[in-house]
């Protein structure tokens, strides 16, 4: 059974531990700007919303890549960037309609969530279970994805 990240804004306190954990796990530094998961601040509503790649089945980033640098990890279902192959052209960063592939100027490559190979550091770090790693058939997850993908045309 494939698992996926479930993000529940109503449980998020905005503590940013997920960003710290992500950047440390993947980049070896505590630097939220290097995190693949981001907590967005809704000050008018007094809410926070963690957001990252949903590993969508359309895989816009993967198909847009001109050099086959984004591949599916068959074990986790994650779409992963192969750093050695990525040339840094950034086409995936404009192709992803969810805005979850980012360019890292320090490495000259793009980065995105790869589910940490099946043990996401953000999930472990989150103190309020706003980020959980659940069966991808979970109904709440489907709801989140359908909101996210609201009416983006498919071919």
């Amino acid at each position: 059974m494939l698992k996926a990240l479930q993000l529940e804004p109503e449980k998020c306190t905005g503590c940013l531990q997920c960003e710290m954990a992500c950047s440390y796990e993947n980049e070896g530094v505590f630097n939220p700007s290097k995190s693949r998961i981001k907590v967005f601040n809704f000050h008018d509503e007094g809410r926070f919303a963690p957001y990252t790649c949903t590993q969508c089945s359309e895989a816009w980033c993967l198909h847009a890549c001109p050099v086959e640098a984004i591949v599916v990890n068959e074990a986790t279902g994650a779409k992963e960037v192969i750093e050695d192959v990525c040339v840094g052209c950034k086409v995936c960063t404009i192709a992803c309609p969810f805005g979850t592939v980012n360019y890292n100027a320090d490495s000259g490559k793009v980065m995105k969530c790869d589910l940490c190979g099946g043990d996401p550091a953000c999930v472990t770090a989150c103190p309020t279970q706003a980020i959980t790693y659940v069966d991808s058939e979970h109904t709440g997850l489907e709801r989140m994805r359908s909101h996210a993908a609201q009416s983006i045309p498919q071919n």
Partner: protein
Amino acid sequence: MQYVIIGAGPAGVTAAENLRKIDRDGIITLVGDEPEMPYSRMAIPYLLINQIDERGTFLRKDDEHYKRSGIAIVQGKVVSVDQTEKTVGLQGGTKINYDKLLIATGSTPLAPPIPGIDLPGVTSCWTLEDARHIARVAKPGSKVVLMGAGFIGCIILEALAKSGADLTVVEMEDRMVPRMMNDIAGTMIKDWCQHNGVNVHTSTKVNSISQDDGSLLVELSTGHKLIADMVVSATGVKPNTSALDTTDVKIEEGVLVDKAMRTSDENIFAAGDVAQAYDFSTGEMSVQAIQPTAVEHGALAAKNMAGQTQATHRGSVNMNVLDTLGLISSSFGLWMGVTGGDSAELLNKERFKYINLQFQDDILVGATSLGLTQHVGVLRGLIQSKIKLGVWKERLMKDPTRIMEAYLGATQAIGFNADVMK
């Protein structure tokens, strides 16, 4: 079923792979006219700076990929298509039968009508062979003139500058990347290049190129004269429709296709840079010539060639991202705005940061950015999903950087609307 695809770029290769997924038994032939494995022109700038080797430009890295997928690659130049016999004729006389034919022949560089454009030492930067030639000449201390600062000019500009060559850029229009960037952004990219030691002449034409004692003499419309070891021509491209010269297939700017990627001949389809196809933003048929669109076209054409006629095109969003000496710019959709629409803009010239959003009512229809590397794709998402921004439009008018919050706020259960959306 025999499928023939002319053109081994992203559109052609994607189509071949999708055909194989749908039709396990069909015969698939991919015809390319360059003596290379299918590769990506997008990767050429990175080859020029030795970040990757030639293999790094290949569209598919596994040598056995095509063989294993049952995709026959034929190297040859198509000289004729016979619509009655349903054959493709190659130079040398070989004929290939087709039931369904895909034209994915991409673009060819335009050679501006300038005296001396055919001289040795004047080259385009389009093919792997061009790249090999440029890499041999562009060395520290060599003098290079780049004609054209459009998208292609700009992506090779960095590679030429990094080679250590003394680089001068000449652009006819009044700013850089005029077809993708507005006045403010195009002018800022020029300022950025000048800051970084590249000479840029805008509103300037090359009048002539001549040989001068082993070098090239480039005369500009401003009266300036430049000495160059090499002139790289990047003055635009046009759809490469020559394969259809012997047919009655309807061609305007490119090969006209319907929403099934089918041309005026029911057995001939077109995809990628050569196709004049449905544009999401304008509703018109246009040639976009961009990588994501080429791949979308290729996949869609394959479905229709294999008989999945319910697959219709909803239109591609025109978009570009460009890295000019480290300054990253992007534009989406109707970045120039629409009549009666609104726009929001934030500019910091000193820090080379800029964002411009274009709305029609409370829907985002276009955008331009400079120096934005995080979450930029959401601009495409907001445009293509036509999300009604509601309260978020006013918020974006005040702070156009909050694009991600606008997207999440308008589509997800956040705050006051959490219960309603469950």
